[in-house]
């Protein structure tokens, strides 16, 4: 790894947000991550988090692609639709999120933590996507590579790889 001093905290951010305690399921959090990464046109993050979401969704894995296509016509809960709407606003700018967006999420059953975690996941992927693409990091082309990556992200979570000497 190029800079483990900062890398270890980036892994901790992903682990805490996507695997730590939250009222949102791990699959829902990975879907938000993939959805935002897709809007930022970050192929690496989108493909890897979509693969993790599919792995977590199991029989319902097609939900991931349905969301990337259009959340409102997908079979996810109304609460998830309202949260994805907030995530899409955050991807553009925090200033886009309106009281109405928040009210709609609450009416659909979202609580304070659902809303907080959605905004912070969307904001974090606005960071990760810029970091990955801003430094033009290597992006695998082969779809099978991402499937394996997604399984690893589900089984092992997010932790700093052991440094090779």
């Amino acid at each position, binding site marked *: 790894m*190029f*800079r483990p*001093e*900062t890398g270890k*905290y*980036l892994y*901790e*951010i992903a682990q*805490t*947000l996507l695997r*730590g*305690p939250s009222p949102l399921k791990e699959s829902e959090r990975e879907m938000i991550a993939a959805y935002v990464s897709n809007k*930022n*046109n*970050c192929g690496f993050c989108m493909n890897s988090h979509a693969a993790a979401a599919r792995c977590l969704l199991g029989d319902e894995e097609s939900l991931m692609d349905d969301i990337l296509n259009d959340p409102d016509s997908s079979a996810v809960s109304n609460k998830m639709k309202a949260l994805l709407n*907030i995530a899409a*606003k*955050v991807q553009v*700018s*925090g*200033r886009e*999120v309106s*009281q109405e967006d*928040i009210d709609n999420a609450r009416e659909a059953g979202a609580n*304070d*933590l659902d*809303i*907080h*975690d959605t*905004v*912070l996941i*969307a*904001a*974090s992927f*606005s*960071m*990760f*996507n*810029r*970091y*990955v*693409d*801003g*430094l*033009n990091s290597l992006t695998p082309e082969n779809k099978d590579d991402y499937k394996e990556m997604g399984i690893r992200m589900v089984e092992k979570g997010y932790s700093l790889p052991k440094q090779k000497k």
Partner: protein
Amino acid sequence: MAYIPVEEHLPGITGLLEFRKDTAAPIRALTQELLRGPSTLTEAERELIATVISSGNECNFCSAAHTAAVEALSGDSMIVEQVKRDYRTAAVSDKMKTLLHIATLVRVSGKSVTPESIDDAKAAGATDIEIHDTVLIAALFCLYNRYVDGLGTALPDDVSYYKTLGERLVNHGYTRLPQGYDHLKKNK
């Protein structure tokens, strides 16, 4: 009023970091490492990158707070205004001009960063780690700005809050105060 219940005496990011301390911890640690850890960029230069991003994202809280930090670190009350107006004509080094250029590209999208912008920075003497840290600071403030405004956090009632916060960022850094922040409550 923020969209979620944060403590009234903690505007902007400060209330969010206390609302959920478990998610705040690694974000604080990353910020401390990037803005205060060992680096060949000065702390004022790194704060200037944070300010330019926050200003570009029109995040009033972050922009004012990091402006205060730059002023406290550099003793220069003009530099932020100059850089916000046009970093190409501001009184910063040629290397900083190229790094601020990269940061402004990252703010739009990671995909906006061009090989030429990286080559220009290297030609002006920037190292790989300086380029890395510039990109990551810019990306990190794209996180902070969205977090602060996406949850509709309040601005401080009194602008003197920023000066106090800027001094805290200089003297204490980004780690959580061991005693917390209850001392900032106004005695009513």
